[in-house]
């Protein structure tokens, strides 16, 4: 279900890594938590509107995007817990071990990277949130999926809104709105 694409790395490997490390704090602190919160807000909307969200979820791109969102939120959570020496390692290593199961939160990150990053913990006494490395690498892969899904969801909603607002549908609906209901002589 999840698209597998090869990421293009810049020629200089260390530059590529430092670029990612540099992005971690900003994205953990700002963007995504807020963004995920807003998506959640939409999903908490009125019960009777759930079918409209359900329709959107039938689309493969939207579904992939939501999986990517959920994965990112969980990875951020693990990265934050990973800041705490001790319990952080347990959670982070747990997430790495999950790579052996179907509950892999970083499917686009190789086992070598995931498990190899844990070695860094040894040199920092567990203070380094190593799961953030995998979170960031996965996020870079997931971001285009999220964007494509949100774009598709917007298209679906716009198209249905246009249908619902069309004269034909409005005219049809008006015949059944309470004042129009009655016994006809036809």
């Amino acid at each position, binding site marked *: 279900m999840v698209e597998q694409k090869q990421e293009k790395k810049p020629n200089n490997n260390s530059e590529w890594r430092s670029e990612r490390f540099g992005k971690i704090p900003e994205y953990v602190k700002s963007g995504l938590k807020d963004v995920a919160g807003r998506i959640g807000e939409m999903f908490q909307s009125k019960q009777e509107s759930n079918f409209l969200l359900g329709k959107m979820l039938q689309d493969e791109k939207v579904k992939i995007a939501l999986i990517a969102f959920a994965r990112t939120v969980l990875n951020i959570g693990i990265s934050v817990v990973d800041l705490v020496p001790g319990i952080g390692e347990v959670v982070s290593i747990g997430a790495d071990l999950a790579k052996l199961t179907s509950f892999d939160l970083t499917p686009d990150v190789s086992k070598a990277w995931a498990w190899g990053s844990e070695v860094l913990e040894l040199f920092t006494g567990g203070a380094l949130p190593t799961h953030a490395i995998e979170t960031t690498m996965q996020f870079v892969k997931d971001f285009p999926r999220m964007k494509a899904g949100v774009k598709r969801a917007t298209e679906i909603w716009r198209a249905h809104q246009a249908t619902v607002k069309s004269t034909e549908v409005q005219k049809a*609906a008006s015949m059944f709105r309470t004042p129009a209901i009655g016994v006809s002589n036809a």
Partner: protein
Amino acid sequence: MPSLEEKKAALEVLIRQSIQLDESKKPELVYKIPQMTEQDIDTLGQFLAMEVDQAGQFYAENLPKLEKFLTEIEDYEQKNLTSTTNQADS
């Protein structure tokens, strides 16, 4: 006051646009319209008209949020990820 025939035609329009009804069952439902009583037509019509109203309200409320979200995602990508991500729009 709409005639029964007008209501039947209107019901067909509402059935076809509905997203609550199963797509595979729509043709069968449309086929059954001529055999429906006026009361059944009114009941189903009212239900689907309510769906139209709720959908209108839902989109008016949530579509701008989704559009804003998309703009923010694009801005974020522009500022932070342009050099490292591949586009997945296709």
